[in-house]
């Protein structure tokens, strides 16, 4: 019987080796996943989900999932900036889910969706900070023309709203402003897509170019309702 391995008692040596194996296998898989999905100059990742494929900065965090019962499927993709101060929220509704969402919220037209979502976020801000004030923004011609161009190239009829909330939230007695861009469009006249680009004012400004690149890279697959 061998009593020692690498100068250690055999069970201890097996333990140390096992931890190293777990660590190296895990790290190798992470590294190969990273290498296999890098795009552009190695600073962006490409991901294909059930509903769409897109590129995003490799330092951002992406969270995806779906919800809904039966055929009321909603696919959600959240992209958080590296400072975790800005989010790009993509929400793909199935046909039945679209009808439900519109009905539940008394929305008669897709053009009302951005205002509804903006109001929802503003109400949430009010619950966080009593002196939050909502402002509608129109002086972002470059971004708005980009969105219009993006939609035209893809044949979408989009509706958008740009807002700014002063004193949206408070952290350690410091108040922060937020900016939000709310986009809604109907695909095939029956499936709603919501895109929300929202975050702390400075972080939002800083991440505008990233948002544009993310938006440009989105390739939407066919949305199928769950049966």
């Amino acid at each position, binding site marked *: 019987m061998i*009593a020692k391995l690498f100068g250690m008692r055999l069970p201890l040596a097996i333990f140390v080796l096992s931890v190293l194996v777990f660590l190296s*296998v895990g790290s190798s898989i992470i590294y190969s*996943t990273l290498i296999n999905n890098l795009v552009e100059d190695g600073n962006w990742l490409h991901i294909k989900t059930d509903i769409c494929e897109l590129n995003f900065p490799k330092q951002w965090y992406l969270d995806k999932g779906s919800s809904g019962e039966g055929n009321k499927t909603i696919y959600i993709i959240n992209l958080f900036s590296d400072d975790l101060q800005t989010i790009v929220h993509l929400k793909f509704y199935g046909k039945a889910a679209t009808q439900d969402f519109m009905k539940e919220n008394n929305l008669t037209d897709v053009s009302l969706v951005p205002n509804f979502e903006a109001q929802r976020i503003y109400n949430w801000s009010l619950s966080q900070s009593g002196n939050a004030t909502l402002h509608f923004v129109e002086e972002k011609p470059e971004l708005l023309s980009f969105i219009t161009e993006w939609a035209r190239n893809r044949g979408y009829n989009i509706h958008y709203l740009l807002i700014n909330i002063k004193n949206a939230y408070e952290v350690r007695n410091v108040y922060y402003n937020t900016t939000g861009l709310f986009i809604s469009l109907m695909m095939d006249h029956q499936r709603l897509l919501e895109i929300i680009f929202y975050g702390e004012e400075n972080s939002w400004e800083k991440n505008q170019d990233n948002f544009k690149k993310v938006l440009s890279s989105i390739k939407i697959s066919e949305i199928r309702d769950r049966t």
Partner: protein
Amino acid sequence: MNLGEIDYWKLIHIVIGGLIYLISVFFLEILVQSITDWIFRTMGIYGVLAYKEAQNAYYIIRLGTIYLSSGFLGGLYTGYKIKEKLKLIMIFPSIIGFLLVFILQYFFGYLTPAVLASLSNSTKIIVVPMLVSLSGSYLGGYTINWEVEEVIEEKISLLLEES
């Protein structure tokens, strides 16, 4: 010391082994999470965790660093205090510890019946970590009691010196 007293103390040491496992899981969970977070942020590769393969890889890392190590520490204590019937005794520290971890996670809402409903989830959350912890517990218990040959070697060298 009668037999009943010995069994009573063994039981206490096994439970303490389980508690060491429990504390180790929580401590290592925070440590591994913080270190991983720091590494991913420093390297600017947080996005890779969006991929299923990377999530599984992170799970493998957690198995080795959290569950195997916690089982090892629980087993190390129990093996230090209890020297007989290691094959049987070493099952308990990690099982007790794992059950405590499970109950706490359930109590604090980290685990729900819905999460555990699928076979793959319950395998990933219960079966595999439990087996890895058990392995760690045995390795810990046998590490502390792995001195038979060393003692014999020492005795032989002492005898040689005397002669």
